[in-house]
């Protein structure tokens, strides 16, 4: 099958071992290397393929906040459920979100079981189709994600305008990756919770196909941290670690592109145009783990306000507190690991999640639960 032609090549065991040897040869035993992998996709590749076993003991990977479902505050789930409970509304949702817990532990999946009209969709085109098929109903698309999923939402709104789909609107939760990275770097309180200094970043894969590598350049320079944009396959991650080690050893702090088969410096110009046509910056947006981050979220421009579900249904921003025992926030900042959370694996499991990190396919807790319990259990027993 041509569509997986180029995935097994990036999972080659022998090449991985070669890269591991190269990292081992270049690492200085005199210092520690602490790298944040921003994206949940990288976190899962590291856990699924056991990459930490291949790295020297003084190279530590810290899991970043790059999981859109995990950083979405529970209040936004509450708002979505309220929307879906309106009799005229059909809420269209990506599958990842269905199990994410709201502030009272309720999920969209449960709301659906109780009668709210919620449809799981695979793309924005499904929402357009539904709006066409159900005139008279209010079809609301729960838009979520970093820069990767924003262009399809922008295109959907433009199509809705073109087709005069009066019943279609968007509950917008799109957020911006560079703002979050900047936040982690500029705020010592956030950065140093848990006392973990950062020596470099593995930059986003899919996000960078849209934004390019250019947006990371000011950060690398200002904070003097190397950033290597890398793909989600295991060999991508290992090669990125090698590139970061070299930069650290040579005292460089540049933006480098490991994922050159998909990412350019400029990114996808067409996609960026579509986004800027429809969206503008919110003054601030709340992230789980990072708090209110200025200029980190998108909303619809005034000229598209009629497609904005928050305006259309006059729903107000809620503020709710997370379960105080849930360590998702510290985990999203890289200050703690999932196994440091008291709830992990007993009260909080994929079947009964307390925090979204346990149920999102990109969540760090989900990665630990799915792939690493044996190793973590063995480590706990031997320590």
């Amino acid at each position, binding site marked *: 099958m041509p569509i*997986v032609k180029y995935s097994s090549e990036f*999972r080659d065991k022998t090449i991985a071992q070669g890269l591991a040897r190269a990292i081992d040869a270049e690492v200085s035993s005199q210092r520690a290397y602490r790298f944040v992998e921003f994206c949940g996709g990288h976190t899962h590749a590291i856990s*699924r*393929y056991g*990459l930490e076993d291949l790295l020297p003991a003084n190279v530590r990977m810290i899991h970043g906040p790059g999981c*859109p479902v995990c950083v979405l505050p529970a209040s936004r789930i509450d708002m979505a459920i309220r929307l879906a409970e309106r009799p005229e509304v059909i809420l269209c949702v990506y599958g990842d979100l269905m*199990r994410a817990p709201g502030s009272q532990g309720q999920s969209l999946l449960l709301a659906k079981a109780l009668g709210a009209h919620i449809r799981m969709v695979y793309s924005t085109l499904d929402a357009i189709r539904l709006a066409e098929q159900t005139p008279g109903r209010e079809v609301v698309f729960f838009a979520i994600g970093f820069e990767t999923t924003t262009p399809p939402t922008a295109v959907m709104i433009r199509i809705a305008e073109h087709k005069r789909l009066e019943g279609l609107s968007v509950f917008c939760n799109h957020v911006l990756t560079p703002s979050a990275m900047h936040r982690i770097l500029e705020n010592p309180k956030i950065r140093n919770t848990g006392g973990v200094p950062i020596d470099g970043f593995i930059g986003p894969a899919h996000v960078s196909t849209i934004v390019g590598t250019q947006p990371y350049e000011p950060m690398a320079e200002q904070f003097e941290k190397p950033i290597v944009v890398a793909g989600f396959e295991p060999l991508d991650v290992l090669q990125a670690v090698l590139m970061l080690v070299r930069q650290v050893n040579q005292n460089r702090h540049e933006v480098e592109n490991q994922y050159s088969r998909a990412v350019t410096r400029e990114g996808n110009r067409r996609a960026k145009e579509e986004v800027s046509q429809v969206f503008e910056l919110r003054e601030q947006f709340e992230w789980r783990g990072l708090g209110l981050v200025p200029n980190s979220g998108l909303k619809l421009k005034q000229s598209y306000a009629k497609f904005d579900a928050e305006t259309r249904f006059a729903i107000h921003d809620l503020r709710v507190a997370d379960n105080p025992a849930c360590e998702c926030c510290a985990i999203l900042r890289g200050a703690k690991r999932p196994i440091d959370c008291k709830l992990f694996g007993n009260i909080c499991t994929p079947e009964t999640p307390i925090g979204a990190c346990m149920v999102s396919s990109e969540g760090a807790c989900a990665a630990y639960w*799915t792939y690493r*319990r*044996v190793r973590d259990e063995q480590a706990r027993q031997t320590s």
Partner: protein
Amino acid sequence: MSVKAYQRKLDVENGRVELSHGAGGRAMAQLISGLFHQAFGNEWLAGSNDQSAFDVTAGRMVMTTDGYVISPLFFPGGNIGSLAVHGTINDIAMSGARPLYLSASFIIEEGFRFSDLKTIAESMGAAACAAGVYIIAGDTKVVERGKADGLFISMTGIGLVADGLDLSADKAKVGDRVLLSGSLGDHGVAIMSKRQNVAFQTEIVSDSAALHSLAAAMVAAGGGGIRVMRDPTRGGLAAALNEIALQSELGFHLQESMIPVKPAVAATCELLGLEPIHVANEGKLVAIVAPDSADAVLAAMKAHPLGSNAADIGEAVADDHKFVQMTTDFGGRRIVDWLWGEQLPRIC
């Protein structure tokens, strides 16, 4: 009551099921005799009694029941009818029993096409006939529009276990081999390819098949060496092995490189963020076999048309946590967990 008394024949080509077809009156009798009896054709149904009588022999019998609520009802490689027959036969056959009789209960949404119902019933008749079993009891209910997703089928089956055979999920022992009869995920991918909001083109067809003759060949070759057999349906191989691990209080260690997966299935799973080991099968079985019988059983599987791609994929190991683990192609070791909830696609 004779069919000849009706003035108008059932309009199978263009007609639709109405509430009256489940109401116990003439319309229902006409539907049953004109459509189901013809499709299932056997002496028991011809008697038109509320029950069917059959002789029993000495020995142990097994009984199973299952509900079929799939969407879509028709998929590449079969439909809900053939699937129900195969699924029920397979649940019987996993005990090593010879399937004998089935019953079928239909819950039909009003407005359902007679032509579709006929196709489905005929597939059931053909699947049962090919497997040498009989559908000897049935029931028909019609519910209002919106109260059922077209058609639900509930099936019960009974079978006869050969003397001395006692397969059970709690009988696996440390050191046993794990034998898989063929490639994973074909059924789930075939179904997903036809779902309304994720439709895609694939050459994959469902593996839906009755496994009793394969199971019988394995039992003949391995006898008491076969401890457990399971057909990994919903939740895939991962769920089947996790269940056995819990029941037998041990773990499993699999070799990813030994597990057959068709490239098109692997590609679909990659795109949708699923794992073949979690995807449903309807014509595959996994057997936990004592090490000294494993070679003979595997050879018997490979000699059978439904097991030509059979493989020894791992072993039962001592593990207090009762984890199913897998050495990946990449070299690392990971947990193979139960699927959580339903299979949901990912965002990006």
